[in-house]
């Protein structure tokens, strides 16, 4: 029913690709990050909330249809529906059913809750396609509350000595959820233009976020004292950022679990905050689907597939895709951001 070919994940019966990486006719997109939502498809289908971002990033003239979670669509006998993936706002798992056989393609997902994303919903299926970005037992992500305390504590500490705090996050998804974790009583929150653009789209689509100010060329930097600045990875090491001095730098990412990754990025602090599953979450999610067949994509796919076979006796195999292997902390983020938002 589903095959993996050079263009992406394909359902022949419905003639539709899920997250294709080459131009095709029909594309269902799990979420708007650029390795999943690519340019050049004739027709797009995505969750309602992902539509504005996709128009913003891929062009206002794309042919795109929005769908609500659980809403079903019939294409040539295939029943298609979207279900919350918990990855970023507007992210979805794709469920496809044909003659009683059910597949779920989960895109990117997480089980831990954040403040702005519809929580992940386990969907029963026969075959499950899962990512494995953090598919090693060394990845154990802390609950949101403890990270929140750490971030605000760090900000407070920097503010106390008159230093700014720069938080590096993905502009889409993480920036909005992290913003809602911040305690506005500590000080003023600023955003990089790339973050602000997405924040505006979020507010147009959903609801108001914590108040922020966009750092413009005209912004009086001297007024920024003990402020928090949310910026994308592409801002690191730029003149834009140097003007924020004196500041302390931190990165929010699941990769920050590893000391080597943290040190390599030259950040003062790394906060373990991810929009992906850690090892336990992956296991929980895979088991909850009840799937006998599991296809493991981007990440530590061969290791994780082996684990699923040995530990749970599942029929698990690895699949090559062009989704960011996320092999490297932060850098693929830079590529992602630069590809999309190059302009500041």
């Amino acid at each position: 029913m589903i095959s993996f070919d050079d263009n992406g994940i394909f359902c022949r019966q419905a003639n539709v690709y899920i997250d294709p990486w080459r131009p095709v006719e029909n594309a269902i997109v799990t979420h708007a990050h650029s390795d999943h939502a690519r340019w050049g498809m004739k027709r797009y289908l995505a969750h309602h909330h992902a539509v504005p971002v996709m128009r913003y990033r891929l062009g206002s003239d794309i042919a795109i249809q929005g769908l609500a979670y659980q809403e079903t669509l019939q294409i040539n006998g295939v029943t298609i529906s979207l279900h919350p993936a918990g990855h970023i706002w507007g992210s979805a798992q794709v469920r496809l059913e044909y003659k009683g056989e059910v597949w779920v393609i989960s895109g990117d997902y997480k089980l831990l809750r954040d403040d702005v994303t519809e929580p992940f919903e386990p969907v029963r299926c026969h075959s499950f396609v899962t990512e494995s970005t953090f598919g090693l037992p060394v990845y154990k992500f802390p609950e949101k509350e403890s990270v929140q305390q750490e971030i605000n504590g760090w900000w407070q500490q920097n503010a106390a000595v008159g230093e700014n705090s720069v938080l590096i996050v993905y502009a889409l998804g993480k920036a909005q959820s992290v913003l809602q974790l911040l305690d506005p009583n500590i000080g003023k929150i600023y955003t990089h233009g790339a973050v602000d653009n997405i924040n505006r789209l979020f507010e147009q689509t959903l609801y108001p976020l914590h108040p922020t100010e966009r750092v413009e060329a005209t912004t009086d930097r001297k007024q920024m004292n003990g402020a928090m600045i949310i910026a994308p990875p592409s801002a690191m090491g730029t003149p834009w950022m140097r003007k924020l001095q004196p500041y302390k730098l931190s990165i929010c990412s699941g990769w920050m679990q590893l000391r080597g990754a943290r040190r390599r990025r030259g950040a003062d602090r790394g906060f373990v905050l991810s929009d992906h599953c850690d090892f336990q979450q992956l296991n929980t999610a895979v088991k909850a689907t009840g799937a006998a067949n599991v296809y493991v994509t981007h990440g530590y796919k061969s290791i994780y597939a082996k684990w699923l076979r040995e530990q749970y006796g599942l029929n698990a195999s690895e699949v090559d895709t062009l989704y960011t292997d996320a092999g490297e902390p932060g850098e693929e983020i830079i590529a992602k951001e630069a590809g999309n938002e190059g302009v500041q």
Partner: protein
Amino acid sequence: MKAFNKLFQAIDQTTSTNEKTEALAKYLRESEAADAIWTVALLMGKRPKRTVRSGELRTWCSEESNTPVWLLEESYHVVGDLAETIALLLPGRTTNKDVALHDIMQDLISLNDKTDEERKNYILHMWRMLPHEQLFVFNKLITGSFRVGVSSKIVVKALAKVFGKTDNVIAHSLSGNWDPATVTLHELLDEQRFSEDSSKPYPFYLAYALDTEAEALGDVQDWIIERKYDGIRGQLIVRKGNLFVWSRGEDLLTEKFVEFHGLAKQLPDGTVIDGEILPILDGNILPFHVMQTRIGRKNLSAKALKEAPLSMVCYDLLEYHGTDIRHEPLHERRNKLIALLEEVKKQTIASPLQLSPEFPAANWEAVARERMAARDYGCEGLMLKRKDSFYKTGRKKGDWWKWKVDPLSVDGVLIYAQRGHGRRANLYTDFTFAVWDGDVLVPFTKAYSGLTDKELLEVDTWIKRHTLDKFGPVRSVTPQLVFEIAFEGIQRSSRHKSGVALRFPRISRWRQDKDAGEANTKEDLMQLLEVTR
């Protein structure tokens, strides 16, 4: 341990040298004396003999965390640090238990004569008792080199701050042999005690690589030009009738150098010589690996002594008849050294000491020519030292320069990659390169360093997309990328498929302008062998 862990976090969470120094100074002021000395020792890289094998830790961690051994191994290759891997895998516990650092160190030392079961029980007990955030540091104490982004310079600076002494005095006090289990910081820094310790070496004066035109150094007559040897930099001390030989890494190697043992009687008391220890046979310097093999031996056979007899090529005198003369100008120190070596020669026909000859240069062009010839003598290049220079502490610019010959280089094809360690964890950065032997690629060297962070990421991504096969942690890749490999020397080797072994190989650049077919051949390597020897 709580305070030590906090210190570690503070150091780990900043990239600023000043903040690290501050944090360490604060810790040294506040901590218990017995902990402070251990902290200094650990940060300086001094650590007791390891008493728990890494294989044991792996097995116990696998059991304790319900992780299959293969998955633990895979995780280790990604994390790039065993202590960290184990800390991440062990179940987290929040407790308030605290054990003093010096107690832990003593416990670890005493494991040496315990049974396997007792050792396992102790480690498991600690893993279960310590708060989760301390496990990494605890594991680091077990597993070895405690490199945490603190150089000995920072330790020296922090101590200087706390004890109100100069950096040089502190550096000297910290040199040599001392045991954190039996000495306190106050004792170690006490000048009285210090003068009684006859084994104490002086901190080495190290040179930077020449970063200007030689002409910019002024009149060539103001300089002493010597060869730069590729051996073990050492300090030879005779005091109170005893001989001590220190390496630059401050290992006491006296026992290894039996050739020098007679010097205890032949050199006057209160002599400290700085020089290079080299294997020299019939006046010819032997390749570095000959000495490596010899140093590595537990028992010195007569054969080993005959095949690799060691000498010291002496280039400086730091103490003369019991007086520290480091503040005297180099040419005066050198004159005293010459006189001293003459004295030794009078007493024995086979002195293991020889003077580092001075190259009499008329002008800088002549010096430049001499530099190019360095390989003919088995040397790395030249040392340029100002005639009136003092003997300084540590790496300093200005008076001493090393001027090495340009490295040899070969273009190799990337064929295998493995993930790196530390800052390179989780990135494919450890490469194996090959040259052509007919239409077959034969691996000839590994190289780890030389690429920029940006290039490393690019290559890492490329490797993931061009993997042909995986053997455990090693990936073989499409033979396509070409890199220029620079190295200092080349030797015949029966252990390597290519038949050669390189000295100090590193990547000098990524030859994006070349295809795999344009890489060098095994014949090219053989030719280099001929040329360099």
